[in-house]
């Protein structure tokens, strides 16, 4: 189907030959090939690119993790030296948090929020594209440090003054601070964009309380990002000035207090934890009802507990600092606040369990990941309660017990949710079902590997093995069942199993891409709006924007409930619904035009960052690229013009592109 409609040219304007624009026409005509990806503003293409990039960084971060575990498998490990080990665990955490889970969430949010709220794209498509490119360039920039004298070596928390120029003389921390600054810009723009989309572009009839849970949780996350990113931005600027321009924000001799960094970092860092986990809560709140064949139990409770976590999450940051000498009053207050946040989290676990209760459960791979999340996250949540108890935390913090805790929360929680989402939404995104057979290998190896890796870390931590040690010594390992030697080895073996499990996912993707059959229109008998379109969706998402009357709109169009018997029967299938939508299709669909400027603007950012590290003139060049990008973007006409279109299209098709 032709997509582009040219506005009919007024008679007074002579025809302009398109050739006069050379290669720099607006890239409106590129529907295929690399240019259609490079300059796209389509939320679905950007979502896929976010996902692909995030999975690449997942592999990078995963290899770093395997190296860490190999080093620690035996006492006095020799796989890595101390310096390399410190870089490895710093970059493992940084990569997994900022370059895998956060962009993976962006991938799902970008792809599915417009579909779930019945919109044709996000509110600011070009900003969306800019966000992706800024994230990609920031991620590459962060990792370039490996090749330019060593990566950051201060831990992802980068406590001052250990991150200062005296204690970390390589450029690693500079690359880290500036790289995160760039990805932070990406997160901020994405947050604004998605918030506006959700608040303003919902389909008619979709009140906030009829919005799918994933969209709800992702929106809470965008608000968290909106307020958390500025804090880390400030902290990173202080760090940059301290390292590169001789500032003394954390210099004790100049009267500063190094705890300033910790407060800034954790005021960002704790909401960040919820930024990582809430979207996965949203994903499984979509998956569980579909495969239980009944609605989410207590939808308003799930939504409000999510929002409550979003609020209370701001009042608990100092529980990362119970050992840093805050004084008993602060410790007591933050300890109690941390316990309070366990309540809304517990509400969610109850609701998921009750959703399963009385259902008709189908154990697809997506469902298995979702159920595993409930159990594994509960383990992580409960170990969380044990260190919400501040005195007990002073024994546990900075030991492997904490490593076990947050990997149960983030691997068992966030990442299992992400995998559940991938298996669930893969047919929607690519039109093919991932293989369930390989998927089962994927799930079981990951579940076993994850428990073998992180389960023993509870023991290691309670036996007093601190984190971030490049070696452990036999002299402090003990004997008997709880000896560190045995459980370190188990954890390392587990990490290999886990890696193999993840490998099966990529095998599954390859096999599906090669041999997978076309997926049916509604493979899971799903419930929400994103399934009310083709697989993969058309560029304009919906032929006609649906009017929403129920929470599970799609389900309610397919099924009717007999009021007397309470029996539920199917009245029509997805095909009929789609056919009807196509019959009533909207006459004029306005789609945004692709643009060069987002990628140009994003390219300027790493150039500035390079310049700040190596030479200021380079930073000025980067600044000029950014300024050029901003103005080119601002001046770019909102609608692609006649001369941008080549060849001129017949003025009979449906979709008009606007900037």
């Amino acid at each position, binding site marked *: 189907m032709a997509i582009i409609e040219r506005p009919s040219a007024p008679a007074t304007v002579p025809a302009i030959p398109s050739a006069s624009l050379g290669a720099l026409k607006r890239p409106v005509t590129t529907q295929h090939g690399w240019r259609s990806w490079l300059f796209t503003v389509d939320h679905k293409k950007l979502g896929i690119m976010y996902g692909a990039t995030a999975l690449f960084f997942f592999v990078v971060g995963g290899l770093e993790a395997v190296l860490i575990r190999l080093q620690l498998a035996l006492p006095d490990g020799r796989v890595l030296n101390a310096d390399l080990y410190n870089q490895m665990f710093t970059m493992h955490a940084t990569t997994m948090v900022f370059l895998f889970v956060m962009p993976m969430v962006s991938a799902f949010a970008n792809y599915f929020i417009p579909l779930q709220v019945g919109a044709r794209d996000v509110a600011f498509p070009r900003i969306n594209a800019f966000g992706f490119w800024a994230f990609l360039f920031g991620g590459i920039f962060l990792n370039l440090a490996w090749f330019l004298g060593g990566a950051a070596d201060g831990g992802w928390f980068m406590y001052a003054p250990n991150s200062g120029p005296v204690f970390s003389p390589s450029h690693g921390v500079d690359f880290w601070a500036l790289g995160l600054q760039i990805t932070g810009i990406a997160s901020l723009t994405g947050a604004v964009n998605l918030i506006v989309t959700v608040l303003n572009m919902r389909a008619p009839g979709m009140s906030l309380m009829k919005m799918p849970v994933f969209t709800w949780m992702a929106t809470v996350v965008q608000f968290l990002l909106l307020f958390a990113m500025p804090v880390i931005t400030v902290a990173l600027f202080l760090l940059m000035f301290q390292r590169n321009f001789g500032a003394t924000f954390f210099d004790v001799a100049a009267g500063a207090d190094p705890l300033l960094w910790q407060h800034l970092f954790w005021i960002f860092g704790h909401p960040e934890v919820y930024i990582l986990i809430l979207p996965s809560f949203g994903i499984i709140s979509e998956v569980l009802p579909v495969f239980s064949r009944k609605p989410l139990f207590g939808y308003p409770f799930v939504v409000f507990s999510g929002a409550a976590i979003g609020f209370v999450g701001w009042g608990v940051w100092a529980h990362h600092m119970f050992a840093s000498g805050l004084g008993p009053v602060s410790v007591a207050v933050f300890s109690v606040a941390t316990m309070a946040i366990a309540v809304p989290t517990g509400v969610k676990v109850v609701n998921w369990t009750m959703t399963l209760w009385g259902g008709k459960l189908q*154990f697809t791979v997506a469902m298995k990941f979702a159920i595993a999340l409930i159990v594994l996250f509960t383990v992580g949540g409960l170990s969380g309660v044990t260190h919400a108890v501040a005195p007990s935390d002073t024994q546990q913090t900075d030991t492997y017990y904490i490593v076990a805790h947050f990997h149960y929360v983030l691997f068992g929680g966030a990442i299992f949710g992400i995998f559940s989402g991938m298996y669930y939404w893969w047919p929607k995104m690519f039109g093919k079902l991932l293989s369930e057979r390989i998927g089962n290998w994927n799930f079981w190896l990951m579940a076993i590997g994850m428990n073998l890796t992180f389960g023993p870390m509870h023991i290691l931590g309670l036996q007093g093995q601190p984190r971030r040690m490049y070696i452990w010594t036999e002299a402090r390992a003990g004997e008997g069942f709880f000896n560190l030697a045995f459980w370190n080895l188990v954890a390392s073996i587990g990490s290999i199993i886990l890696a193999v499990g993840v490998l099966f996912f990529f095998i599954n993707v390859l096999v599906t891409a090669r041999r997978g059959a076309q997926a049916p229109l509604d493979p899971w008998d799903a419930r929400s709006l994103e399934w009310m379109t083709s697989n993969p969706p058309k560029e304009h998402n919906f032929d006609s924007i649906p009017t929403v009357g129920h929470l599970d709109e799609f389900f309610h169009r397919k099924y009717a409930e007999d009021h007397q018997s309470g029996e539920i029967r199917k009245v029509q299938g997805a095909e009929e619904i789609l056919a009807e939508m196509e019959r009533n299709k909207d006459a004029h669909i306005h789609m945004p035009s692709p643009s060069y400027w987002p990628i140009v603007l994003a390219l300027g950012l790493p150039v500035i960052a390079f310049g700040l590290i190596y030479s200021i003139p380079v930073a000025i060049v980067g600044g000029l690229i950014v300024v050029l990008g901003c103005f080119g973007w601002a001046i770019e006409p909102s609608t692609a013009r006649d001369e941008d279109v080549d060849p001129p299209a017949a003025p009979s098709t449906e979709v008009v592109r606007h900037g």
Partner: protein
Amino acid sequence: MTSARPRPTAVNRLGSMRRRVLPALALVALAGCASNAPQDTWDPAGPNAQMIDDLQRPVFAVAGIVGLIVAAAVGWAIFRFRDRGQAIPKQTHGKPVLEITLTIIPALILAVIGVFTVRTVFDLSKTDDTEMVINVTGQQWWWEYDYPVQEEFGITQPIITSGQLVIPVGTKVMLRQTSRDVIHSYWIPRLNGKRDAVPGRVHLNRIEADEPGIYAGQCTEFCGLSHANMRMEAVALSKEDFAAWVAQQLAPYESPADGLAKEGEAVFLNQCVRCHQVNGLERADGSPAIAAPDENVVSGAAPNLSKLMSRNTFAGAMFDLLTPACRRDVWEASPADFGSKYLAGVSEDCLNQTDLRGWLRNAPEMKPMYANPALLAGTGGKYRGMPYLALTESDIEKLVAYLVTLK
């Protein structure tokens, strides 16, 4: 190679096992014939750690029970409600009464835990009945302990030592912790929870040991390259033994009479004294030899080596001064004769010659310490940790002979 300390009591072992419910049964036999790691957090040996332990055991129990309930509920749902061809269930949207009940119950449990937590937090922060004060200063990658003058303990002159903290048993000791460079964290798990040592701040940390013995610890705030090697021990001595230890530390310096040790003193004056102080050491011209670590290392301090051989470890407690056999003898001593064995110090026969010589030969090779001279530009040429000194083998021979006299 193995740690040794009194076996855990049955209660402790049970506590540790609660974490791993299933394998627990299989281990009773195993755990019965072996000891846990020396930094076991479930094995308190003093009132502060005991307070924490009393609080955390019930919390772990409650958490374990809640976890089992959730797992059982999910497991039952998986088994009972799997798809066996039943009709599509009724599309219920939830039961608010159930929801609210299941919200209030955990809230109540947490409220109870919260009350006890707050009480323990304030109990642990009590300082007004302190009996003894020790200043603890962390730097990359070792701990310095200085004992301010406290006549009631016989400390008439400040004592400076490092690596091993020596305290009297049954005494409420206040550690006033700070740091000279980056943030470190002082943690002797069997005596109390950890507390960060932050430059520019003094953090108070109270410890008290019930029995004589040696208690292992480890720096737990990431502090750079050799974070993993920044260990420490707390040594508890009976009150009499502690008085003897103080007298030993305050004893005047005795220059070796002659021979290899005397030559070693000359090497020391020539090389080591740039950073390392030995109280009472005099130069050939009779002037006191004052170390100037502030001119040579970033942190501005290096371990004071007076009475080095009264300690069991060196290089930030990374290496033992004792041979493995002698070490085991001290670590595994019963509380009754621990004191006399510790106070005996390091004899020539027990000296761990391999590590000490290796250290003198090339310290940065034994412990990662940013020794690369190319990285010293940002520090104005100052070292972090001990540099490579290019000592000859005969110098090392003399130095070892001299060091072994420092007790």
